[in-house]
């Protein structure tokens, strides 16, 4: 019996929880071990489908997609940002260090920098901040200038600016005005649109409609280009079920394989 174990391949594996750290109010950073080849090759924006139940249980049945907040190459681990707002994420947030979780991934495409990009604008909404942290790290490592706008319901939901590299300019927006600008993250983008070579956004879908409304009048020939990460409920994560499609100018495409990162101008929101 050569394959009698849990894992069917290298993209499906079990990781061990190495650390759990509180972040952004009620959320957690979950550090999970993973094969070195996966950690080293991971691109910002890619995600994993995580089993959020005991293997012998049937509920909640479906895996949950989580994009990677950061990698820890030294410990060969992936770090996920988990906000316990649903049954699956709540189960995951209840784990303790040493527990094992089932992962399928990496899945999906990634954010990409254009060759001549020097100035990047990040626009994050709530837990959508996760992949932009990893992207920000990479931008700083490449010597780019980064402005990081983040919106949350209130101050407790904001990322501590110390989580980002010292050279990153952090701009906060809160719904209740408890810190920074009172309003949404996209409201703050206008000043930076002419400055930026590229814009990267991750947050709830209504945020992208607002973002489009703010940036479109300021862009010239669709520049700077805007990449967004679309979050959809999904089942397989591999393009088989077509449950997570996004409507684009080229038709309905599976966000799990053709995305989650799309050009804002390609997506019909």
């Amino acid at each position, binding site marked *: *019996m*050569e*394959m*009698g*174990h*849990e*894992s*069917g*391949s290298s*993209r*499906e594996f079990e990781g061990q929880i190495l650390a759990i750290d509180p972040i952004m109010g009620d959320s957690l950073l979950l550090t999970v071990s993973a094969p070195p080849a996966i950690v080293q090759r991971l691109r910002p924006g890619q995600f994993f489908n995580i*089993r959020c139940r005991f293997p012998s249980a*049937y*509920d*909640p*049945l*479906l*895996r949950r997609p989580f994009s990677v907040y950061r990698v820890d190459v030294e410990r060969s681990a992936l770090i996920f940002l988990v906000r316990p707002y649903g049954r699956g994420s709540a189960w995951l947030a209840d784990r303790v260090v040493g527990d094992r979780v089932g992962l*399928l991934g990496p899945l999906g495409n990634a954010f990409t920098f254009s060759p001549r990009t020097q100035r990047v604008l990040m626009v994050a909404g709530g837990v959508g901040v996760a992949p932009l942290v990893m992207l920000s790290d990479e931008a700083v490592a490449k010597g780019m200038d980064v402005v990081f706008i983040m919106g949350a319901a209130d101050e407790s939901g904001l990322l501590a600016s110390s989580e980002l590299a010292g050279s990153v300019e952090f701009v906060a927006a809160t719904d209740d005005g408890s810190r920074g600008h009172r309003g949404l993250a996209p409201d703050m983008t206008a000043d930076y649109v002419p400055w930026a070579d590229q814009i990267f956004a991750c947050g709830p879908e209504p945020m992208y409609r607002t973002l489009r409304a703010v940036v479109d009048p300021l862009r010239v020939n669709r520049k700077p280009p805007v990449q967004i990460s679309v979050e*959809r*409920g*999904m*089942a*397989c*994560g*591999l*393009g*088989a*079920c*077509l*449950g*997570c*499609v996004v*409507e684009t100018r080229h*038709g*309905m495409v599976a966000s799990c*394989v053709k995305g989650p990162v799309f050009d804002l101008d390609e997506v019909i929101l």
Partner: protein
Amino acid sequence: MTDGSPPDLSVDLAPRNPRELRLANPVIAASGCFGYGEEYAGVIDVQRLGAFVSKGITPERRSGNAMPRIIETPAGMLNAIGLQNPGISGFIRKYPPMWERWTVPAIVNISAETIEDYAAMAARLDEQPGVAGIEINVSCPNIARGGYCFGWDPGMSADVTRAVRDVTTLPLIVKLSPGATDIVAVAEAVEAAGADAISLINTLVGMVIDVQHRRPLLANLTGGLSGPAIKPIAVRMVYQVAAAVKVPVIGMGGIMGLRDALEFFLAGASAIQIGTAIFVDPGLPIRLIDELQAWLEHEGFASIGQIVGIANEGFRRGDSAALTAWETAGA
């Protein structure tokens, strides 16, 4: 085991068809849950499967339903994908040429809204290299009958089966809908109309209401319920159908592990399909092949065929005493 060789897992799902549908093992990836096979090529060893069934193909290209298309339910999920597929012509250009180079048998699932369209698609698949068989999805609305589902009616299911049988010698599986009032009557009708095998069950029609927005959550309003939540219904229907027909029965509905798979074989299934479980546990089908073999060996069986239907003491249609006794006994 007398000669020490491992138990035989192979099965012919079309014994009355000269073209045969011989599988190395009885574990099949179900339609709609495995794409066209290539999606899982980087995750599992697809070639080790007994077979796989393609996504449902329709006469014309379809872009599918609006979102949301899926929602999780207790121990299951609802889906209303809406048969998003490239249509029979686009399908034939792209996939059979790829499958021709594969060793695993590829079965094509076909859906249509008229009998003529079913037959036209089957005719085009008949001599197509790379296609090992056809699975007819009869859970579609019949336009000529005001949208009444083909699969809910024995006569309409038989008409589709006969029309397809007339234009192809390919092994033919008819996939039954659990929405039929009398699933045994449908099974008997499609067997008589020329089906080589019968697969069941397709999903059950369900609904989730979005309480916040006070409307059904799925854009399509209803969706097909699948997963472990439907398994007891599937096992019961396989048990009933297997007792009534002579052609091989392929059982499916909520199989999540070896014990579930064994229930279907014992109920009378000659092979099984794995659907929703693939989404959450892609390694399962391959693992099941090994676990089935180990279980048979441990229990002293020489072949999978030896356990097919051994829990099935017959289930006469309309026999309420048998039904009550059976329900009391186990479920």
